């Protein structure tokens, strides 16, 4: 008996409890707002006390782990007395809910979005490839570079922070290591770090112009070889780093790439010590990954009208600026940036802007259409990186092997290509 009991805690525990124990309804009539974003305890608390303070409808803000979102929403719909009226989640996290037919179309709100000044491209994205508006863009973020000002002296001759190349980044890290005696470039390759996004949105498309179609191309082989040589100058603790703000603040890392929200503490605590700048460019330009968070209303919402009021409130410029202050997620509506904005946020905002507006910039979307297979898809990138960079396996062989695995995942999900890969007829193909 003893032998098998832990199984229960492993499987029963993870699967059952994760779905159920998180929702603890507050007051009986509050509108339940389930969100995969603003999840860290302090952010969630400030979301309740600052962002949602002026909401026209009292809101019960419930953070949820991204992998559990679909399970949670499905369970809520089937429960007989659904409680969730509003969902806040990433573009890619909302996609599987559309596939399940769980979201209520919001076409009636499209005019409001125009009035608020939300860019048309974003509204198109929010259709998630269907004929209906599936979610309302709420806030946006991206990934950028950050460096301690101490590292700037080691920049290679002729390199400019705002238009760095990956070669120059490698050179810079090498110079810094030579001077300080320690590898000071860092990546968030820890268990909950976002390293997979670096490969999917930055490195691979910057070298190959694609993500899926070019996965096994000679350009990709060159990219991995280049990255492997850059890795010699990377702090080996990188495989433990989840949020780069921590090693930046402790001084273990002087140059880092990460999500803006995971760098913000460094800029907040010591705005004068750090600089923010766009990601480097590769042979195929500067690829970057915009992160769009949307608000959706489930078909089973007990208070859809209230949810629309909350959406309207969250899109007001003043609320969007409060959201920026709390979370480092940038406004999607036209909102004047107040002069008294935290200097750290200002620094990040300038880098975000410079990255978007770079002449060779092209956005690479978070993987779309993979549904429940997105975790497996991301794992292909971390496995490939593990094999090539950490375990020194043959690049060509690894790419062939993982490329097959990727095709298998795409076939199972029947996912068409997404940007920057060219649109496909049917399932996206690794070439």
């Amino acid at each position, binding site marked *: 008996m*003893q*032998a*098998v*009991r*832990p*199984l*229960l805690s*492993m*499987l*029963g525990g*993870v*699967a*059952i409890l994760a779905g159920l124990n998180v929702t603890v309804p507050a007051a009986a009539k509050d509108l339940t707002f389930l969100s995969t974003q603003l999840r860290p305890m302090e952010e969630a608390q400030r979301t309740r006390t600052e962002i949602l303070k002026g909401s026209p409808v009292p809101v019960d803000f419930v953070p949820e*782990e991204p*992998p559990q979102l679909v399970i949670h929403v499905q369970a809520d719909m089937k429960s007989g007395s659904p409680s969730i009226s509003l969902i806040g989640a990433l573009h890619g996290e909302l996609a599987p809910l559309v596939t399940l037919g769980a979201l209520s179309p919001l076409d009636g709100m499209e005019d409001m979005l125009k009035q608020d000044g939300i860019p048309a491209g974003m509204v198109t994205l929010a259709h998630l490839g269907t004929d209906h508006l599936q979610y309302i863009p709420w806030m946006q973020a991206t990934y950028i570079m950050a460096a301690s000002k101490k590292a700037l002296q080691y920049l290679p001759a002729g390199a400019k922070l705002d238009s760095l190349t990956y070669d120059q980044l490698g050179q810079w890290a090498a110079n810094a290591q030579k001077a300080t*005696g*320690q590898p000071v470039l860092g990546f968030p390759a*820890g*268990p909950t770090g976002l390293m997979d996004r670096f490969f999917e949105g930055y490195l691979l498309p910057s070298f190959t112009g694609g993500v899926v179609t070019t996965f096994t191309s000679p350009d990709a082989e060159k990219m991995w070889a280049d990255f492997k040589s850059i890795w010699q100058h990377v702090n*080996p*603790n990188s*495989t*433990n780093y989840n949020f780069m703000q921590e090693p930046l603040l*402790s001084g*273990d890392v002087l140059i880092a790439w990460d999500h803006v929200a995971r760098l913000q503490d460094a800029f907040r605590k010591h705005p004068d010590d750090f600089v923010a700048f766009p990601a480097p460019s590769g042979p195929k330009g500067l690829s970057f990954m915009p992160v769009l968070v949307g608000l959706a209303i489930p078909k089973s919402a007990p208070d859809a009208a209230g949810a629309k009021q909350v959406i309207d409130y969250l899109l007001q410029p003043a609320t969007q600026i409060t959201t920026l202050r709390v979370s480092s997620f940038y406004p999607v509506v036209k909102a004047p940036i107040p002069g008294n904005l935290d200097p750290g946020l200002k620094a990040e905002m300038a880098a975000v802007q410079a990255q978007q507006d770079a002449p060779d910039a092209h956005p690479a979307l978070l993987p779309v259409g993979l549904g*429940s*297979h*997105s*975790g*497996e898809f*991301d*794992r292909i990138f971390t*496995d490939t990186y*593990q*094999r090539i960079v*950490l375990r020194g396996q043959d690049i060509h062989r690894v790419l062939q092997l993982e490329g097959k695995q990727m095709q298998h995942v795409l076939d*199972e999900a029947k996912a068409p290509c997404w940007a920057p890969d060219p649109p496909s007829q049917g399932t996206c193909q690794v070439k």
Partner: protein
Amino acid sequence: MGRHHLAPYLLIAPSLLFLLLLFFVPLIQTIALAFQTGSGIGLGNFDQMVGDLDFLTAIKDTFGLVIVVVPLQLALALGMAMMLRKVRFGRDLVLWIWTIPLGISDLAAGLAWLSILTERGYLNTVLFHLRLIPRPESWLTYETPTALFLAIVIAELWRATAIVFVILVAGVQLVPAEYEEAASVFGATSWQRFRRVTLPLLRPSIQTALILRTVLAFEIFAVVLAIGGTNFPVLISQAFIWQNQNQVYGVAAAYAVLIMAITLAATLFYLLALRPRAGEPA
């Protein structure tokens, strides 16, 4: 009459029902899930599990930990239990201090050891101030697998020796003092008394402690996660990753079934290896 016959069954019914619902049903579901593939029943999930990049490492790491940690814990706990017998003054205090780790969650213990062993942790601070190292050393990276393994062993020894110790102390208290006295009357040395009298009488307690500890050691998770992260894959952490991050429940279930098979085999091994010999009390 009939009522009296039913009473014991009625009294155990709630616990039986509880186990059936929350233990047996999920167990069957897990096994079913492990053998379910897209097209029907098969070994697809197990194929995928064996093909997992970290599968062999996880097996190696898990068995490595069990083989090193469990014997060390048994030896330590035996020593502690023997020493405690000689303590007259303050026995309760010593017992209390030795069992403190029992009350600490594995994750908290893992985090405590992380704060000691991490690059800017207490260990490096002390070593640095003693001028033994020129700059903070990294002990817990993929480049230092031996140090990482030792760190997890030390944390596990600290955290989970107490449970073995408590079981052995209970066993020791049941051993009548007369046996040992008789042995010493016949001139047995203290080592002979331990080896020939105490140890055999402790066998049932040792068996229980070993089964419990080995099963739990195969399921080590939180301590490894806190200290090693993804640098030290073990079987349970792989099951967790496939369930939570990759969201491929079938492969997670396959891992769970594998872990169950291993722990069942280990339990059976102890039951057979430490069974009472003919003529001995069980």
